[in-house]
């Protein structure tokens, strides 16, 4: 008799994507349905929480059905149900949590609570098996963290932003440049057309720690544009974008490489929405090459960099082995964090 397949039905609804996936053995995607609300929120220039929650309710069972059908599995085949319970927007998280709880309860399946950021890291598992200890750079609209994983399912923040997240800085200077939300992709494109001529500050590079700061860069950018406005001068948008991105990418790369040198790691996972940034991928790849370190850069494919259920299923595979199960009182935890290194 062959071993029963391990199949996890995974839910993700932390922000503006409703996603449900079926994952086999933590690394095979049988289905990964993603319903994005981006067109809806573009109307408002950013995610409006109540609108997001309303869309999630309309999508949740529909996406679940599509995920099961595409995977060709039924409830009796499933091993467990997994769900993102934080961090994220509380009203949005609650829809995934509530639906996952009801479905797990109805079919007597264990429920695995997953930290959304762990999911982002485990998106890399679809590229290749992960080897520990491992270093991860998590960069998104809400996070900029260096995470050390000593073993599977163990996370420790060793570097963090002290103010704005990198993705957030992109969106904020995007407003100044008149780039519509979400601004990251367009600024990345503009940056590739321009030169780093403004020499914006590189925050905290001189400090020993592994922390980041993007608030000063944001202020310097805004001041530069406002001063030019006051004297009626128009600055080159491509060069502004290139200079901004050069600062962000340099700081991210420098601190990440510093961490990699301090730790005995052979894999670097870059994850989160900003992992899609071409400038960041290029610079990291070059820095690793120049360093001579035996460090394997793993960046998940674009579709798995954004929010999706598959990554939650991959992270749940580890928690299933550890038997990390939630009970019926599971709630959304919008401010959920990994522990900090003592």
């Amino acid at each position, binding site marked *: 008799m062959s071993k029963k397949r391990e199949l996890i039905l995974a839910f993700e609804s932390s922000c503006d994507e409703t996603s449900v996936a079926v994952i086999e053995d933590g690394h095979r995607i049988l289905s990964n349905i993603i319903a994005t609300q981006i067109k809806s929120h573009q109307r*408002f220039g950013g995610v*409006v929480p109540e609108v997001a929650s309303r869309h999630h309710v309309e999508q*949740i069972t529909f996406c679940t059905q599509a995920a099961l059908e595409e995977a060709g599995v039924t409830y009796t085949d499933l091993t467990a149900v997994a769900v993102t319970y934080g961090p994220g927007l509380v009203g949005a998280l609650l829809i995934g949590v509530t*639906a996952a709880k009801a479905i797990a309860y109805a079919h007597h399946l264990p429920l695995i609570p997953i930290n959304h950021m762990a999911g982002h890291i485990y998106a890399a598992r679809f590229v290749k098996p992960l080897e520990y200890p491992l270093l991860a750079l998590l960069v998104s609209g809400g996070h900029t963290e260096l995470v050390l994983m000593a073993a599977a399912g163990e996370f420790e923040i060793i570097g963090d932003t002290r103010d704005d997240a990198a993705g957030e800085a992109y969106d904020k200077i995007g407003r100044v440049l008149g780039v519509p939300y979400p601004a990251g992709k367009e600024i990345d494109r503009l940056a590739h057309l321009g030169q780093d001529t403004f020499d914006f500050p590189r925050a905290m590079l001189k400090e020993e720690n592994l922390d980041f700061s993007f608030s000063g860069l944001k202020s310097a950018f805004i001041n530069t544009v406002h001063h030019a406005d006051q004297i009626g001068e128009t600055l080159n948008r491509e060069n502004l974008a290139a200079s901004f991105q050069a600062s962000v990418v340099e700081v991210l790369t420098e601190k990440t490489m510093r961490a990699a040198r301090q730790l005995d790691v052979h894999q670097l996972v870059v994850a989160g929405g900003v992992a899609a940034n071409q400038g960041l991928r290029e610079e990291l790849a070059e820095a690793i090459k120049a360093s001579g370190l035996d460090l394997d850069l793993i960046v998940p494919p674009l579709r798995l960099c954004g929010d999706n259920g598959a990554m939650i299923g991959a992270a749940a595979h580890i928690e299933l082995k550890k038997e990390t199960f939630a009970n019926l*009182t599971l709630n959304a935890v919008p401010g959920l964090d990994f522990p900090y290194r003592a």
Partner: protein
Amino acid sequence: MKLLAMDTSNQAVSVALLDDQQILGEMTVNIRQTHSQTLLPMVDQLLKQTQTAIETIDRFVVAEGPGSYTGLRIAVTTAKSFAWTLNKPLVGISSLALLAANIVDTTALIVPLFDARRANVFTGVYQWQSGSLQTVVADQHVSIETLLARLQLLAEPVYFVGNDVAHFKEELQAALGSNAHFVGANHNLPHASVLGKLGLLAEPVADIHRFGPVYLRKTEAEVNWAKTHDERGTESYVEQV
């Protein structure tokens, strides 16, 4: 027919299990709490106490709104997920009707209301006609001032129902005088058994996937956006990628 009914539209959570007209069990908790943490444990306890397997439920009934948006979505998402995943019918009942149905033995007008803040209420007008609860004025989001003006025109006795009635008691009394009637604490609280009875008779929803709360209000973001944009002809705002 076994029926599981649940309501989380406002502060209280109420769940009930019925076998046709017979109430097998009911549980109501009325404290300030997170419905996400209380609803499913209450359902579980009710089913265990009544020795009922969830698979044997024939129909799920939920208070569909109006109410507090986040709270409302907990019972709606739970009931919707149960009905869909167990392949059973789902019935949505107005959260206001469920309160109105607390008042029996009268043919006077019944006005349930929820405080919607900034001097607005969610309300409707109900009446028992030949043994069934009828909607006289559809549920709506309206200013308390407008509601009072309309009720004054009717010049009929009115029963106000709901825990939030207390917020407006003086205004209601001043406007309607002796036509304003108030009810006791037990009648101001939602009871899922009452919801279940309404749900026995109602038509199940045609498409469970599309079922969602009846908010009775667009979000402010959408209202403001619509003022300056033409929404006709736009494709869906949510798409699978």
